[in-house]
């Protein structure tokens, strides 16, 4: 009798432990399907704002960004994001979309780089609207929607960035001795109910990289990869990683090359 009760008790306990996880995954799946409805994606509001901003004459030089070169020539936006990060001759370094936007706002519009870097991301704790650079990144990236992720790997600096990025990905650092790989190098890892991408799983990383920039519902704003890098570093409790720095561009180069061949599906929408 006693044994019977114990077995029953254990079965109930096992159920109790298993059920929340299973139910959680189902409801998250449903939620994701709803998030996939593009017509319901407020990221488009941000893209619209980015377009206006891109074409407006602003800054000390009273110029628009319409002559910004994202690698395919000045003002050529279509497909440009699909071939980033890449090496730029004028700045002599590998740049991603955000660091390139920073270059253009400085060189074309005359803005102060240090001033822009003081506030690159909207703070969701204050219900802020997107910063200019977040809106611009969302707009420029959207011009590559439906195209293949295809960053170039010809210039030695591009090869170096990819390599350095992967090394950095595995490098354990900070007060908690984390690396990116601690969370992102194995299938099936998660933080609470959030499934984590395995950067070495082609399907996984393509699904991730093809949907950034993305509208974060919990933030109420569109976010870009630079924000993701900064946020992951914050989660690892390291000092703030610098916006558009060589370290972030190298990481993003590595991630983008891992996702090569995926198709951009923009703007994304995530929890």
């Amino acid at each position, binding site marked *: 009798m006693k044994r019977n009760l114990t077995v029953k008790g254990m079965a109930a306990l096992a159920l109790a432990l298993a059920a929340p996880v299973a139910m959680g995954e189902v409801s998250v799946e449903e939620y994701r399907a709803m998030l996939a409805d593009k017509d319901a994606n*407020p990221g488009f*509001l941000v893209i619209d704002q980015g377009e206006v901003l891109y074409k407006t004459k602003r800054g000390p030089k009273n110029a628009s960004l319409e002559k910004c070169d994202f690698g395919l020539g000045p003002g050529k936006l279509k497909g440009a994001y699909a071939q980033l990060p890449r090496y730029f001759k004028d700045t002599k370094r590998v740049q991603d979309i955000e660091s390139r936007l920073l270059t253009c706002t400085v060189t074309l519009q005359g803005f102060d780089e240090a001033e822009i870097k003081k506030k690159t991301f909207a703070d969701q704790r204050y219900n802020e609207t997107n910063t200019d650079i977040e809106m611009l990144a969302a707009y420029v990236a959207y011009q590559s929607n439906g195209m293949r992720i295809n960053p170039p790997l010809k210039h030695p600096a591009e090869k170096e960035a990819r390599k350095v990025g992967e090394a950095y990905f595995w490098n354990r650092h900070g007060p908690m001795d984390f690396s990116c790989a601690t969370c992102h190098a194995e299938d099936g890892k998660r933080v609470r109910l959030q499934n984590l991408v395995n950067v070495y799983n082609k399907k996984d990383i393509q699904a991730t990289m093809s949907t950034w920039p993305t509208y974060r519902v919990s933030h109420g704003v569109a976010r870009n990869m630079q924000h993701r890098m900064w946020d992951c570093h914050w989660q690892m409790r390291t000092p703030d990683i610098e916006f558009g720095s060589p370290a972030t561009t190298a990481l993003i180069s590595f991630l983008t090359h891992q996702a090569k061949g995926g198709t951009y599906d923009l703007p994304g929408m995530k929890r």
Partner: protein
Amino acid sequence: MAEPMRIRATMAGDVADVKVLMNHAMETGLRKDAKTGQLVPAHYITEVTASVNGTKVLDAGMSGGISKNPYLGFKVKGPKAGDKVVVNWVDNKGDKNTAEATIG
């Protein structure tokens, strides 16, 4: 000045499927500013109306319970492709916004 809305309206059989994205902070009035400790004043949409070819088809009340940048989807029976949908909102500060789209 209120930022523009986005409307998408398509016919599915004899039903028009209208999807509206509104740009709004939707402050509940219950949130405290982390720096000052003061309540952030409420600022949210209170009423949304929609009309098709000048006839009102939807009149909705909203409040601080709706998320930032609200999305509203609704279906209307009767209109034809080419008809005009107009969506208006008013918020608790009296700000207004209007946008229109053609049903495709």
